[in-house]
């Protein structure tokens, strides 16, 4: 059973030139075909993925930077807005204060003016009333006098008499 001869037979006895040629040609063809149909696409896909991942990482990094920038911008914007808002409120307060002052001032002056007008009107009224009274008093006193005296007076004497009475009225006043 343990006959070493078939081991040698199994070895195919040394080198067969034909086999070598077949092997060489077959292997070269195999390399060419497999490279074209399998390795090349496979390597391309792997390379593409590598590039894709690298791009994605770059992009993510960029996005992060961009968002950080935007956040900072927004914060600045917010700060500016707050500042301008408080400024506007301040201005409005100031304006309101001014307006209040001016309205008060106007009102005060208006009141003063009204008071003055009223006073002059009253004085005029008083003057008018006094004059009317004087006229009436003159007429009345003439009638009274003519009734009392019942005598005709010349116009000169009458005037003199009236003036005399008037002066007396004025003194009484």
């Amino acid at each position, binding site marked *: *059973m*343990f*006959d070493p*001869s*078939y*081991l040698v*037979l*199994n*070895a*195919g*006895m*040394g*080198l*067969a*030139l*034909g*086999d*070598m040629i*077949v*092997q*060489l040609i*077959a*292997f070269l*063809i*195999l*390399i060419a*075909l*497999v*490279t074209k*149909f*399998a*390795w*090349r*696409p*496979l*390597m391309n*896909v*792997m390379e*593409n*993925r590598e590039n*894709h991942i690298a791009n994605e990482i770059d992009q993510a990094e960029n996005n992060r930077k961009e968002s950080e920038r935007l956040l900072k911008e927004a914060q600045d914007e917010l700060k500016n807005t707050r500042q301008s808002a408080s400024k506007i409120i301040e201005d409005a307060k100031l304006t309101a204060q001014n307006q209040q002052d001016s309205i008060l001032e106007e009102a005060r002056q208006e009141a003063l003016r009204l008071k003055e007008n009223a006073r002059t009107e009253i004085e005029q009224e008083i003057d008018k009333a006094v004059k009317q009274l004087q006229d009436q008093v003159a007429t009345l006193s003439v009638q009274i006098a003519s009734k009392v005296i019942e005598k005709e007076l010349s116009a000169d004497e009458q005037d003199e008499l009236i003036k005399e009475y008037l002066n007396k009225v004025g003194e009484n006043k």
Partner: protein
Amino acid sequence: MDHGAPIVRDAFGISGLDFNLSNVLMILVTSTIVFILAVVFSRNLQQKPKGLQNFMEWIVDLVKNMINSTMSWKEGKQFLPLGLTLIFYIFIGNVLGIMFMVVYDGELWWKSPTADASITLTLAVLVVLLSHYYGLKMKGTGEYLKGYVRPVPFLLPLKIIEEFANTLTLGMRLYGNMFAGEVLLTLLVGVMASGFLGFVGGLIPTLAWQGFKLFISGIQAFIFVMLTMVYLSHKVSKDH
């Protein structure tokens, strides 16, 4: 048990042109299987890999790491297809002899193609020739020749011997491993075929040896490609 090989001597009337038809058959079978596997496994390639594509990419990374461990990726990138084809071809060739062997009409037809010195040595010669070719191409003739007298000129004879020794060891290592595996497998199967007791006694060792041979097949394919990359890098790299 006893079987010969279907050898055709002096084919086409050319003296010395011998064909071992079983080798020719197995070379074609192995090449076809490798081609079909590679193409089928590389179908439907996607950015997001799944299933078979993951397996293929694992192999690509394996060979890539071998190249990267011996030379720079810039120099070694072009050897990736060679390494991939080699590792597939040798592994499939090795494994083909594990499952069964077919003896027809007293002649052994189905076996590992790598269990034949002609085939492994052809691969080894191809690799060494490629290393010389790429050494000449990438470093220029002067630099290539200077490689033989570096670091000291009296090493020149050793360097020349080294080239042949490399070729021989590269081919013979694979051949020896695979051939020894097949011999032992043949013996074990012979024991199993000898009778009921032989079958019972030989079953466990046969299974164990088949598993171990599968392991050796992978290891030898790995070693062959690894050494290929080492030899290529010796010729190609500038820092050697």
